[in-house]
């Protein structure tokens, strides 16, 4: 059998990008259609967003997806 033997971890730059854009967590939440609590959880890397929300976050910052998210083993 093949496949990853252990789970990786999704990291992100959401906090840095949000602060650079001068947005509050609530403002970013409103732009991407999420709750402020979810933005807090994403920034703390306690929650890995769905692909859809991840793309909406990248679009909100007007940067490529891979500038916002990374995956580490």
């Amino acid at each position, binding site marked *: 059998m093949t496949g990853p033997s252990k789970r990786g971890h999704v990291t992100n730059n959401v906090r840095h990008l949000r602060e650079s854009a001068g947005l509050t967590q609530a403002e970013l*939440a*409103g732009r991407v*259609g*999420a*709750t*402020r*609590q*979810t933005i807090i*959880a994403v920034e703390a890397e*306690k*929650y890995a*967003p*769905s692909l*859809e*929300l991840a793309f909406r976050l990248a679009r909100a910052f007007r940067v490529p997806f891979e500038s916002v998210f990374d995956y580490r083993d």
Partner: protein
Amino acid sequence: MPEQEKFAWASLIASVLVWAYFAMRMTDGGGVVEVAARHMIFSYVMLVVMMVASHAVIAAMLAAGRRGRIASDERDLAIEARAERVEGYVVAVLVNVLVIQALAEAAFPGHLLPRFDLGSVPTLVFALITTLFAGHVAKQLATLWQYRV
């Protein structure tokens, strides 16, 4: 605190109070009382009315304080799904406890397991309602836990 967390706290408290009311009407001195069918039906209808009314009030109060904010998103749905899975486990375990107890009672009348006379309608009703409440309480606790970690 997210709206879902507030709802979980309020629902937990309301559910425990409603179950306490039901238990007060159905039990005495730690055992289920052989009450008349009319009494049981009234207690059951009251339980349903109180649960629906209390949760409608909670939902309305939370909706009033929302002020245009998004009520829930994908993370809330994921947390709810996991909490419902916990609820399912709790109900399944408790139903199996009742089944094992009933089978033990039928096969081994002198068994040493805790005894519930499930042949008695009030006991059966109380056990099933309590199972549903335990599942609901487990769901709210699982919801609260997931918002805290």
